[in-house]
């Protein structure tokens, strides 16, 4: 199986845990090299965030379990990069 190097997820989560501890905890596993969370929308009880996860070989099952444990719900997987290197979306490259 090809190694997953980057995933971009659309996540719905309660206000707690806040975005900083949420992102910190997502970045803790060894197969994760970095995580960026971006606030997309705030509603009365929930927030929508876009989470970009990068690593050498991301274990998707573990990542999904961890997000669920942090009370998040994955709405969609918006982007996935697999293989030897990350190929940037040509539509976004100048």
């Amino acid at each position: 199986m090809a190694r997953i190097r980057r995933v971009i997820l659309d996540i719905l989560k309660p206000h707690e845990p806040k975005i900083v501890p949420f992102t910190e905890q997502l970045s803790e596993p060894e197969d994760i090299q970095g995580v960026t969370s971006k606030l997309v929308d705030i509603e009365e009880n929930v927030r929508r965030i876009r989470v970009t996860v990068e690593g050498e070989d991301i274990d998707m099952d573990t990542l999904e379990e961890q997000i669920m444990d942090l009370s998040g719900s994955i709405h969609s997987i918006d982007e996935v990069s697999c293989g030897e290197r990350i190929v940037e979306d040509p539509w976004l490259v100048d």
Partner: protein
Amino acid sequence: MNPRERLAGLKRVFGKEDVRSLARRYFVANGFDGTLTSIGVVLGAYMGGNIDSGLAIIGIGLGAAIGLGTSGIWSVWEIERAETSRELLQLEAAMLTDLDDTQLTRDFRNEQIVLALAAATGPVIGIVVTLLPFLFEGMFLSLFQAVLLSIALGVLLLAGVGAYMGTISKQRWYVAAVRMGLAGLVVAVITVFLPG
């Protein structure tokens, strides 16, 4: 959940300002109840005339501590359980998902524990501190002196809590201390002038 995970969870929720603020309120409100109750019980027992030893007053006071401590832990546990269940249902409805056994529900449970303990320790500390002089009754203090010292300790404890609350609310701490301490004196005066 093993004890280490439980401890880490309790530490995490205690780091939240909203939980600390609520714990402070329960601790102070119930501690106020406990200290005033103890002043009333001590004076009432002494003035009843049938008590001739400090240990008897300690026994009565500890009964009050058990009652108020249990009341604090039980009522707050149930209140917080109902509130967090309601909040969880709202969140699950908003997220269209089951949040059982997530960090959120574990945090809710840990918050319940922290708040219930805060509600129970307040009155127990208030009562135990005011009962301390009776341990020395017969050694260094007469029963009357122990009663006076007990009231003084209760008033000082209330004033100390008042000063602390005044400090965190950026008000004049000594005014807050006098306002809280005065309650102890009011209870003492009312008890002294009670008929019989």
